[in-house]
């Protein structure tokens, strides 16, 4: 996912001389090509996310298109007021790239997790919030981010599995169907799609057919499209590597409430807690109830009417 981002960034920088890269003491090797070929457009701000974010806004006020890149926990939480006042309030054309989102840093714990970022960023005016599930989505988002003249956040993590056979015609705010199914619609955002796809395969064996829908854009949201998708199964689950407050579940629930429709649903994510345990990403997902088998079980119980 990150490699796709970097390749795309390189392409964009080649096409548009205003594209600049800002990092905060990370990306030592991965930016090598960019640094070699665009040395005057790569800046390491050191360990100072707030300064990087506000400086990015200053650059954008002069017509530059900065891609400010660092661990998402730090760009979102540490630099939040700078994101708000300097980028969003002034509607500056800055692209905020958060890496290692969700529980990616599974051995480091909650200081490095981003499990509330969608919630706090979605409420910032002018900001587009992207959360790609696969490389294909990253490619589309990078193009889209450049088209949008305003602030964009891209929530990257480490999924390397691809589920789209060919790039579909993505549309800003409209969730994309990744896998068709009949019994229930599962909305998912970001790299936890891997767990959902595994859960779908498991449930398929038990004769339960899951439609998997990637909500790649968390703001803006095409509410009509969400309802149109739900017309098929009339029930849904949301799965997110994020607090169930303010994240994907909230996005879908708000859309339905706005349109005055209701469907039975189950929300799967962090239940208003900081993630517990350490180990591999799989371990930490398991410890927090969002591994594929646990997702499959919750969906099954929901369909059985037991929750």
């Amino acid at each position, binding site marked *: 996912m990150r490699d796709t981002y970097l390749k795309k960034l390189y392409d964009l920088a080649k096409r548009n001389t205003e594209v*600049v890269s800002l990092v905060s003491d990370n990306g030592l090797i991965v930016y090598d090509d960019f640094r070699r070929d665009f040395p005057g457009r790569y800046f390491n701000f*050191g360990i100072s996310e*707030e300064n990087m974010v*506000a400086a990015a806004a*200053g650059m954008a006020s*002069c017509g530059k298109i900065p891609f400010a890149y660092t661990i998402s926990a730090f760009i979102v939480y540490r630099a939040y007021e*700078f994101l708000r006042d300097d980028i969003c309030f*002034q509607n500056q054309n800055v692209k905020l790239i958060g890496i290692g989102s969700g529980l990616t840093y599974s051995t480091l714990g909650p200081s490095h997790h981003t499990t509330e970022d969608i919630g706090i960023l979605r409420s910032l005016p002018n900001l587009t919030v992207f959360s790609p599930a696969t490389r294909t989505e990253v490619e589309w988002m990078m193009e889209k981010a450049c088209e949008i003249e305003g602030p964009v956040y891209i929530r990257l993590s480490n999924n390397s599995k691809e589920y789209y056979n060919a790039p579909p015609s993505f549309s800003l705010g409209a969730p994309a169907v990744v896998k068709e199914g009949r019994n229930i619609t599962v909305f998912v955002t970001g790299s936890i799609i891997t767990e959902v796809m595994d859960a779908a395969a498991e449930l398929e064996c038990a004769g339960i057919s899951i439609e998997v829908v990637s909500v790649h854009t968390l703001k803006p949201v095409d509410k009509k499209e969400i309802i149109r998708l739900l017309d098929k199964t009339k029930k849904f689950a949301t799965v997110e590597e994020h607090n169930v407050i303010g994240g994907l579940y909230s996005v879908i629930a708000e859309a339905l409430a706005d349109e005055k429709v209701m469907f039975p649903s189950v929300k799967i994510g962090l239940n208003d807690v900081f993630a517990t345990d350490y180990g591999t990403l799989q371990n930490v997902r398991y410890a927090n109830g969002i591994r594929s088998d646990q997702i499959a079980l919750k969906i099954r119980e929901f369909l059985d009417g037991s929750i």
Partner: protein
Amino acid sequence: MDDRDEIRELKKKIFLTAYRAGSAHLASAFSVIDLLYVLYCKGILQYDAKEPWKKSRDRMILSKGHASLALYVILNRIGLINDEKLNGFCQPGSHLGGEPRMSAAPGIEASTGSLGHGMSFAVGIAMACKMNNYDNKIYVILGDGECQEGTIWEAAMAAYKFKLDNLVVIIDDNRLQAMDTVEEIMGITSWREKWGAFGFDVDEINGHDLDEIERTLLKENRRDVPRLIISHTIKGHGVSFMEGVPIWHYRMPDEKELEILQSELGISDEELIL
């Protein structure tokens, strides 16, 4: 009118605009107005009122945004804010608030208000201008109290690291913040040593001596080195009872004080009613 008369007129305007609105950070505006006057009205800051968005213009970021009225009256004087707009300050339907908003008028180069933002923003502008090979200057005015914000020092490191010799940072060193003296609150006295240690070329001036301000602003940056000017000022300068008294950080005069202020700034009763 000589320069002192001009500045007195600007101070009158600051007060009358605040008086109509009912509040403002008067003392903060009075401490920095001499400096802004020299910067804008003595041909130092390069701008074209007919083309205020010209990309290679000089820029001034008022990081201590609460002194907004000083900026507004200066922009009014150079023709970027008209009287009607200025008179609407802080009133319903106005774009001009107690803290500057970028979209409100040309010449407001950043929305400030939360302290510790303007310098980083200015660093970004200075970097972009260098990328574009512009031969312009970026000025940023900080409060001395504002330097308690950590980002000031993040930005200071970056300004030196990125060799921003197009950046001039000015501290309006009036030695007061909202509650007390800066020294009492955070024990800070040695700006020269602190900024010098961060690699800045440091000058100190009397921020109410117009010739000294002008001379110092005209000095060129050393190659690859950002500049810092410590502008020693008096908060509330020009109004006797405000000068150096912390409570005037955010307060309007009562009836008795108003009389004194009127006589010191030359404001008639008729002007108050208008």
